[in-house]
């Protein structure tokens, strides 16, 4: 875990004091809402349909048990007893009062957390692989670089009023669990022919109303040049990104309109001017940040734990949960435990204060006090001894957090939609709930296998519907809630945007339509073939036919 030094603490204290002053000036009428807006956005404070919403950063998805307790305390004292984990490794509180916010920020600072740059047209909270540091296939821990980027981008004087928000994701493994190809900048740690570790740089991906799988603009960037290269990209974007139309303001539009080759040339030209200068990353500095992410003191264990094996064999419910929840840890005898935040009929991503505290307890007892947030709106206990997995499962079950559905059809990713969001066309949460009820039967759920369903309540795509295997997009048809369906999306290393199936379905028919797709897949799949593979083999036609009949769509 990154531990704050005195400077980091001093900065947060000053920052909160500054925001307290801004809130006071707003409440005293010295700032107009238009002037206050960018200031509150720089501190993660949105105005939603019913109330303010505060978005707190969980940098690169890593949080300590202590921090989880801090979040629980905020949920309890200033909100309605719960928080909402998002797809961007943030947590949102839906009901804070404006004059409480400076106090909330003080409390968060006490556990080394903040809401800086979680919104606004600035460099946002940097995200990374939720399995960072524990994944078996990792080259290097992406959090080291995500933390370096977090520091560099914090209150960056030049890039606080960009044309639009700017999202950076880092992954350290060939298997992309950070969706780097759909970010403004995606960094993939890789090794070049000489054996040096550096980054592949992807620029101009994104979802929203113009979904783009980002192009690679540099095959290999040496580590020491990371910040100067990022600064060059941002400087080009800050000057040339469109400011006349907020729907065309993201960097992906700039990359498309200038052309990838020309854009890359401009970046490289600026980079050559500043490379090797004050932003050069010295190996000592990298090593010092890296020390924060050193592995915890693991026990030396056998790769197989007989007690664990016995319980697996003895208890099918435990085995079922392990089948979906565990991932391979790089340390023998340990497991990565995924915690589903998608109970049947629940609100995807919502966690109560009691559950947060329960998770903090579990992390302290069984996972070196560490917790991770994933971009699939779930949580992770990253270092659990195989021999402890059963105890963790039992404890999660008492907390209502042992739904055995991670990665399956009912593990739906959904944005807040019409229940909270003033931009929404349609509800997302209740559709997610209905889908989870429809696929509640575990035998069937497992038979269907891995399946990503993503729901966004409008074209802004907060629920990443374009990259869902099945994507649902809320649209408005004469005041009625309708949903467009896309198929075949993926957000990993073979990222793809889903294809539109045909005319949208009304609210009442959308869950049936999703089920029809699932049934069609099961009918057409070859043994062991996953949804994406089947879809890529058979194409849209069979799905269209079943959904709309032979001569429609």
């Amino acid at each position, binding site marked *: 875990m990154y531990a704050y030094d*005195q*400077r980091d603490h001093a900065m947060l204290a*000053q920052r909160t*004091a500054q925001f307290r002053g801004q809130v006071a000036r707003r409440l005293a009428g010295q700032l107009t809402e238009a002037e206050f807006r*960018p200031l509150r956005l720089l501190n993660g404070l949105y105005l939603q349909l019913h109330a303010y919403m505060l978005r707190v950063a969980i940098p690169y998805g890593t949080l300590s048990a202590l921090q989880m307790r801090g979040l629980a305390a905020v949920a309890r004292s200033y909100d309605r007893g719960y928080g909402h984990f998002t797809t961007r490794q943030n947590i949102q509180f839906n009901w804070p009062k404006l004059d409480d916010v400076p106090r909330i920020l003080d409390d968060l600072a006490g556990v080394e957390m903040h809401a800086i740059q979680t919104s606004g047209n600035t460099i946002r909270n940097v995200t990374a692989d939720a399995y960072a540091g524990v994944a078996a296939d990792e080259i290097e821990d992406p959090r080291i670089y995500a933390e370096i980027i977090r520091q560099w981008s914090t209150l960056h*004087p030049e890039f606080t009023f960009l044309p639009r928000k700017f999202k950076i994701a880092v992954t350290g493994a060939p298997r992309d669990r950070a969706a780097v190809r759909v970010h403004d900048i995606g960094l993939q740690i890789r090794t070049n022919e000489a054996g040096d570790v550096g980054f592949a740089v992807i620029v101009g991906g994104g979802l929203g109303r113009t979904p783009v799988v980002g192009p690679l603009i540099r095959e290999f960037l040496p580590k020491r040049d990371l*910040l100067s290269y990022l600064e060059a990209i941002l400087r080009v974007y800050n000057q040339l990104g469109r400011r006349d139309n907020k729907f065309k303001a993201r960097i992906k539009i700039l990359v498309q309109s200038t052309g990838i080759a020309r854009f890359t040339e401009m970046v490289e030209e600026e980079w050559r001017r500043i490379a090797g200068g004050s932003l050069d990353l010295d190996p000592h500095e990298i090593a010092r940040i890296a020390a924060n992410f050193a592995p915890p003191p693991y026990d030396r264990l056998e790769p197989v734990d007989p007690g664990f094996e016995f319980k697996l064999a003895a208890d099918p419910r435990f085995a079922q949960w392990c089948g979906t929840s565990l991932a391979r840890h790089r340390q023998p005898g340990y497991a990565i435990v995924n915690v589903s935040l998608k109970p049947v009929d629940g609100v995807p991503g919502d966690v109560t204060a009691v559950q947060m505290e329960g998770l903090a307890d579990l992390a302290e007892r069984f996972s070196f006090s560490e917790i991770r947030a994933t971009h699939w709106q779930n949580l992770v206990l990253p270092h659990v001894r195989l021999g402890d997995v059963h105890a963790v499962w039992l404890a999660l079950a008492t907390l209502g957090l042992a739904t055995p559905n991670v990665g399956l059809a009912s593990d739906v990713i959904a944005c807040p939609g019409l229940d909270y969001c003033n931009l929404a066309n349609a509800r997302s949460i209740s559709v997610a709930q209905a889908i989870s009820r429809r696929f509640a039967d575990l035998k069937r759920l497992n038979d269907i296998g891995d399946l990503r369903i993503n729901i966004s309540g409008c074209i802004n795509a907060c629920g990443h519907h374009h990259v869902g295997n099945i994507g649902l997009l809320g649209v408005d048809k004469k005041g009625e809630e309708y949903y467009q369906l896309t198929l075949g999306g993926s957000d990993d290393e073979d990222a793809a945007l889903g294809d539109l199936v045909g005319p949208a379905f009304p609210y009442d028919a959308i869950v049936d339509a999703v089920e029809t797709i699932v049934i069609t897949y099961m009918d057409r799949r070859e043994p062991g073939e996953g949804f994406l593979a089947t879809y890529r083999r058979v194409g849209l036609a069979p799905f269209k036919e079943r959904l709309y009949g032979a001569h429609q769509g």
Partner: protein
Amino acid sequence: MALIKDNALRPDAWVLVADDAELPESDPAIVSFARWRRDRARLARRNGPLGLRLGSDQPPEGVADDLAAFDLIALEFPKFTDGRAYSYARILRERYGFAGELRAVGNVLRDQLFFMRRCGFDAFEVGDDIDIGAWLEAFAEIEVIYQPAAGDTHALQALRTSLSPGPTRMRVTA
């Protein structure tokens, strides 16, 4: 309009000259980019101090070869949310080494002063009715910085100190 410079409200000796107006004989005068392009030869021969005002769609590359002619460059913020001039300021200071006055004009607000100063601005044109004490505080609200920017003469160390532990603080003043 009032002017913040060197940590105080200062009288402003400069006048902005309309494109079709005569320039004062030798008093400090600011001209637009259009005027500069049109009258460059005459303006360069003039005796008094000369300033240039650039709009937010007029990047400084356009006058890179002429910078020696100017004692002042005013960069415009048409809206405070239009952040292009932050990059222009750094380019002027760091790429071209412009050492004259760099003035922020237009929609200049208290909460942007800190960022502007760090990008190399050293003068700020503000409304007449501001509470100067409160505005000056804006420069000192945040004392910890995490990245080198314009005017960080020990830029490398600035980043180093920010990444290294210890209470070393960087005092930021206008």
